[in-house]
């Protein structure tokens, strides 16, 4: 919302600077985005008059102008084609400053030019507000001005515009008067609204129009008047300036007046060329499916029954609340005008505007909601201005279809409640003053404040809304802060989050970097990790309206994202990366989903560089050990297509599958274009939470000496050390303290297909010193079992 400060001052009297106004309004709730200065740095540009025009002797496209700028007469060479003798134009003299350039004496093919004639663009106006006739040429003033006058005074370039971000609950502030009302309330000024009066009225509206017929509930009101003997022309400069400052392009006097009043009151208006309406009648109805309408922008729109249209007896003539139709547009030939000040269901306007991607000044206002009582005021104001600028004669009477008149709401406010909620002590007098300044007529009956809420305040329904009004005019910045009182409460985190934090700290200590990836992934990711067609991970939840295929499925595994980011890093030349993510996977209870899915938290680790399977296994084991999970069981996983069949393990804790660790399958690596080995672990964080035990119990330090025995056995290559360890542990009884694998040997001292595995086993009792005999007995049992169960042979050193 653009608020030209000079326009604002039509309705309030203030000496405050734009900055002061902006700061005050910001603190009372109108958020200022910026203060725009209309002067882009122009200096020494004055009003001039063209005395004569001559062709340049040496150039076809140049003209030599003699220009009177009051104090002197200048020769200026220009390429413009829209000039004639006697025109008043902006002249940049030698030494003048324009946005981005300075004017000097210039030689144009042998003729010295003492300045430059300016277009509006050169004076800093944006294309979107420049009137079409001045789009390419020099700007020509509408009338005579004193020669030599500073252009900034004539074009109002010393003014400033404040740009606001208006919250959706305050559509009434999308107008100059709305903002003037806010300004008045903020600073305690008196708001002076225009007094609307039409001097002369002729004939009767029914002499020209055959009535208004509303066939849809979505049109709340239609207020209409007729103007005859219309003389289409330019609107006065002051009006054009206001429009341009507020970001609207001047078009013609009638259209400009409707736009002016729309900006002034916030009510979008429309003017139809009444002579082009078949049957001279307005019908408001829902469109018929497939009906067509060419809108003012020249686009043919195909309508459907959700669109509200304005029609004559045969055809649609306007897209209600969004844009008028081309056929009934005001043209230079227009003689009779029908004015519309209507009100429509905001939802329909929003849908239509959205469907056609057509956001106009009208639609942005209607879709937020407008006071239906404004229609009448605005149309009357248009009539007044048309009469004032002599653009037509006002026809007597109006047609108003308005079945359910909007009435002011009555709300009560408890002053002590307001003070309690705001945490302040505002006097009842001050509350009344704030409310009344906002136009909320309020009085106090000794107990309650009774407020009559005008119909333009669509946002005020309950007491809390009035408390907000009182609070914001008091100023939230003036509320003194106070600590929370009441019972002391203990802050806490649920165990699951505590554990998550703990895991992050542990993994950080183990050298892994935390990463974060999107919850949605491409469905192609499941192909990229080579999942079979029937894999349960393919039962994923789809978004109805994803941003694109890459963001369309809710992930059921973290692995694809991990591979993606590792690949990205690898291909950026990163030599080694250790990463982990804790994040949700989304598992539907059924598909398509009818209730919220399970959100299963997963922990995913991914590493590449100078590393191997054993390092990631080590990291996982270390991490779980610190969470109180000591003995993890591993089973070979040969059937997961994402992973290398010979280098992948499934993890079990207390018999429960808690995840997978392994090297990524070479085929998957090809899909991700990573030319190094990658190791990934994905663990079910939810299950891990259930197994963790953060409680630590101290074990006394040993009092008796330990006995260490080394043992080396030769076994077949396919025997896993885990099986050997299981046997050792089985016989170790309570005196076995530690088993440490210290060597695996393959080589010429052994037959092909055999390996030697060496352990150092530590025995210790907490009650006594062990004897050789009892240790030997355990050792013998271990060896016997190894021999019989897995065909191991004791290796002599």
């Amino acid at each position, binding site marked *: 919302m653009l608020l030209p400060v000079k326009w604002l001052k039509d309705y309030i009297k203030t000496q405050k600077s734009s900055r002061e106004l902006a700061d005050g309004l910001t*603190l*009372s*709730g109108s*958020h200022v985005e*910026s203060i725009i200065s209309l002067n882009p740095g122009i200096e020494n540009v004055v009003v001039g008059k063209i005395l004569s025009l001559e062709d340049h002797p040496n150039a076809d496209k140049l003209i030599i102008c003699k220009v009177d700028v009051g104090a002197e007469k200048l020769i200026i060479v220009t390429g413009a084609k829209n000039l004639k003798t006697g025109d008043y134009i902006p002249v940049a003299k030698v030494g003048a400053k324009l946005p981005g350039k300075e004017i000097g004496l210039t030689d144009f093919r042998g003729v010295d030019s003492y300045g430059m004639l300016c277009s509006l663009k050169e004076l800093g106006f944006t294309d979107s507000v420049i009137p079409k006739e001045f789009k390419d040429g020099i700007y020509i003033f509408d009338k005579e001005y004193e020669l030599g006058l500073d252009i900034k005074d004539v074009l109002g370039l010393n003014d400033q515009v404040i740009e606001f971000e208006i*919250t*959706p609950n305050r559509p009434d502030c999308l107008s100059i008067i709305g903002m003037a009302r806010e300004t008045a309330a903020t600073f305690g000024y008196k708001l002076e609204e225009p007094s609307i009066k039409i001097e002369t009225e002729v004939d009767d509206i029914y002499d020209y129009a055959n009535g208004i017929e509303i066939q849809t509930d979505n049109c709340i009101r239609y207020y209409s008047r007729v103007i005859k003997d219309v003389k289409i022309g330019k609107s006065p400069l002051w009006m054009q300036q206001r429009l341009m400052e507020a970001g609207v392009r001047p078009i013609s006097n009638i259209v400009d007046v409707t736009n002016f009043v729309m900006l002034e009151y916030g009510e979008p208006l429309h003017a139809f060329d009444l002579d082009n309406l078949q049957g001279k009648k307005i019908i408001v109805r829902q469109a018929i499916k497939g009906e067509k309408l060419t809108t003012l922008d020249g686009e043919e729109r195909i309508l459907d029954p959700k669109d509200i249209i304005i029609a004559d007896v045969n055809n649609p003539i306007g897209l209600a609340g969004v844009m008028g139709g081309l056929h009934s547009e005001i043209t230079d030939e227009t003689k009779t005008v029908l004015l519309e000040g209507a009100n429509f269901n*905001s939802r329909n306007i*929003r849908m239509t505007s959205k469907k056609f991607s057509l956001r106009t000044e009208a639609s942005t206002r209607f879709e937020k909601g407008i006071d239906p009582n404004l229609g009448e005021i605005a149309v009357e104001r248009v009539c007044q201005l048309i009469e004032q600028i002599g653009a037509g004669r006002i026809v007597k009477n109006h047609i108003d279809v308005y079945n359910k008149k909007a009435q002011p709401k009555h709300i009560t406010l408890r002053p002590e409640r307001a003070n*309690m*909620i*705001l*945490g*302040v002590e505002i006097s009842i007098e001050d509350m009344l003053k704030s409310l009344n300044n906002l136009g909320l007529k309020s009085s106090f009956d000794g107990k309650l404040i009774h407020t009559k809420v005008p119909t333009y305040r669509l*946002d005020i329904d*309950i007491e*809390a*809304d009035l*408390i907000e009004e009182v609070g*914001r005019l008091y100023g*939230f*910045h003036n509320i*003194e*802060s*106070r*600590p*929370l009182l*009441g019972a*002391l*409460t203990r*802050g*806490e985190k649920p165990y699951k*989050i505590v554990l998550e*934090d703990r895991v*992050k700290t542990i*993994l*950080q*200590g183990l*050298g892994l*970097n*935390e*990463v*974060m*990836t999107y*919850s*949605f992934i491409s469905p192609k990711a499941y192909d990229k990790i080579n999942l079979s067609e029937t894999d349960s991970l393919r039962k994923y939840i789809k*978004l*109805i*309206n994803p*941003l694109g295929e890459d963001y369309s499925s*809710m992930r059921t595994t973290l692995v694809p994202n991990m591979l993606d980011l590792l690949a990205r*890093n690898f291909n950026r030349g*990163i030599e080694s*990366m250790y*990463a982990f993510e804790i994040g949700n996977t*989304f598992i539907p209870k059924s598909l*398509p*989903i009818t*209730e*919220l899915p399970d959100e299963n938290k997963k922990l995913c680790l991914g590493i590449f560089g100078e590393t191997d399977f054993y390092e990631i296994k080590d990291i996982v084991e270390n991490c779980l050990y610190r969470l109180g999970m000591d003995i993890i069981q591993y089973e070979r996983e040969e059937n997961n297509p994402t992973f290398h069949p010979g280098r992948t393990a499934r993890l079990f804790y207390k018999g429960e599958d808690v995840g997978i660790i392994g090297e990524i399958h070479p085929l998957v690596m090809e899909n991700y274009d990573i030319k190094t080995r990658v190791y990934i672990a994905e663990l079910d964080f939810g299950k891990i939470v259930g197994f963790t035990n953060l409680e630590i119990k101290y074990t006394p330090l040993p009092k008796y000496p330990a006995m260490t025995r080394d043992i080396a056995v030769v076994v077949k290559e396919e025997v896993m050390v885990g099986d050997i360890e299981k046997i050792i542990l089985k016989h170790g009884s309570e005196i076995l303290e530690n088993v440490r694998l210290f060597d695996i040997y393959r080589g010429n001292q052994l037959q092909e297909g055999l390996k030697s595995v060496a352990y150092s086993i530590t025995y210790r009792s907490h009650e006594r010193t062990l004897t050789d005999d009892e240790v030997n007995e355990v050792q013998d049992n271990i060896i016997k079992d190894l021999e019989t169960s897995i065909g191991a042979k004791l290796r002599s050193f």
Partner: protein
Amino acid sequence: MREKLQELRELAINSINNVIELTELENLRVKYLGKKGELTQVLKGMGKLSEEERPVIGQVANEIRVEIEEAMNKVKENLKNKTLTEKLTKEKIDITVTNRVKKLGHRHPLLATIEELEDLFISMGFKVLPGPEIENVKNNFDDLNSPDNHPSRDLSDTFYITEDILLRTHTSPVQIRAMKEYGAPLRMVSAGRTFRFDDVDDTHSPMFHQIEGLVVDEKISMANLKYTLDVFIKELFGKDMKTRYRPHHFPFTEPSAEVDVTCLSCRGEGCPVCNYTGWSMELLGCGMVHPQVLENCGIDSEKYTGFAFGMGVDRITMVKYGLKDIRLLFDNDNRFLEQF
């Protein structure tokens, strides 16, 4: 006898002082002081001496023995020192070489910020609560008093899975869940992923993060809200930070405010980052819980009042570390991650 002893002494001391290896010293010890050593031999011959001479020579012999022992100890000490010095010199290394084998990992800056924020609120007596990323329309919009024609409900703003199930657009539904589960009084915060239909650019991401807080109790006021948020902002950004509360609009709070915080780049002086206003704009949204929202959750809005606040953690992280591009947070470039 006396002369013989003196001779022995000279000889012994001389050879001891010439020793350059510890083993040689041991040989000398045996040679002079051992059981069959020369000094011992001399002493054995003392029986031939007269009664008067015996104690005198004995004393001399003992003195010489002590003298030899001392000389030997001294040489031994010197030799040990010399060996140690040699060893230490030989073991000298280039201490400017850096060859780190194990590196500590790094926390993701945004997730670390969330943890920091949660811990801060825990210290103020807030309960941290989790909430699902996939929500129903009721928790995400309806019970938060969002008008049913509000544009934020559109397919062009919110990701939907079914008509009733969506990706939460803010962390506020956790407030609804918490109020329904725990009732009043309540102090909670919740942080997590949120989703909106925004194409990826410097400052937008379809997935982003919020942290949300709620206090419900008897006589909770806007003054309490200001106190709590001021403490939080000073803790997070520094004691000299100022806040500015501007009236704003949210459907679920009334009154509502936006909070600006002293610009972190210029600390309020005015700079290009803050558009010369001195303020980092719109860092937080907050307000007094709308009575209808309390009622929707079964809390008596006459007896209890509350305040709520929420903020974008991505934005806060970016402001805190001076990041200009939100995409860095989701790109996971190792060189980026290792800066935190």
